[in-house]
């Protein structure tokens, strides 16, 4: 939904699309590996990792600006 709205507003360019396309193989690799783990991982340890990562990277972004 939001990419469509952004495109309608003229905020999408060919370079955005090209960059996304170049990153698709990396995305596929990650998603395919998750197929092996999603039944086994309850999610909690990984979620805590994601949230801690998010706090650190968000803080880096704030400090850099």
């Amino acid at each position: 939904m939001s990419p469509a709205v952004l495109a309608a507003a003229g905020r999408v360019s060919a370079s955005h699309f090209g960059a996304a396309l170049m990153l698709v193989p990396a995305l596929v690799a990650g998603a395919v590996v998750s197929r092996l783990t999603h039944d086994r991982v309850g999610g909690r340890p990984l979620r805590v990792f994601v949230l801690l990562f998010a706090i650190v990277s968000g803080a880096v972004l704030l400090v850099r600006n």
Partner: protein
Amino acid sequence: LSLTVFALIATAVMVAGFVQGTTGVGFALIVAPILALLAPDLVPVSLLMLMIPLNVYVAWREWKALDHSGATWITVGRFLGTLGGLWLLTTLAPSLLNILIGAVTILAAVATLVAPSFTPNRQVFVAAGVITGVTETATGIGGPPLALVYQHQGAAKLRSLSAFWWAN
């Protein structure tokens, strides 16, 4: 993009795809701050584009677990929020947008960590949809309100709804 920067971004995308496929959240939380630092032009558009194939795949895999009623109400709220997010994106200067991304990332993560257990109702679904629409359109990060609403309802439900939501 230099090769080093591309390799760093590709690694982040791979890890993030794994995390999202496993837990149902986290793709944007990992990729958005890294893109904002290394290739700010690509936020949020390329990030949102990458989420489409990822979530089509997860939605297909987890279709059985989808909460249809919750998904409908969240979509209503999300549509309204998307317009608000577009307004923010076109109004804010890029440096302010980066500050917004940093702040949203931290707030979302802290809220997800400390929120108590509750049973969501219709108003909660719509509100989560509105907040997501605003933040995903402006910054690429939209999943945390959904994670908050569904975090005590099981990982499969969260994965399927998260995926359905992003894929449409």
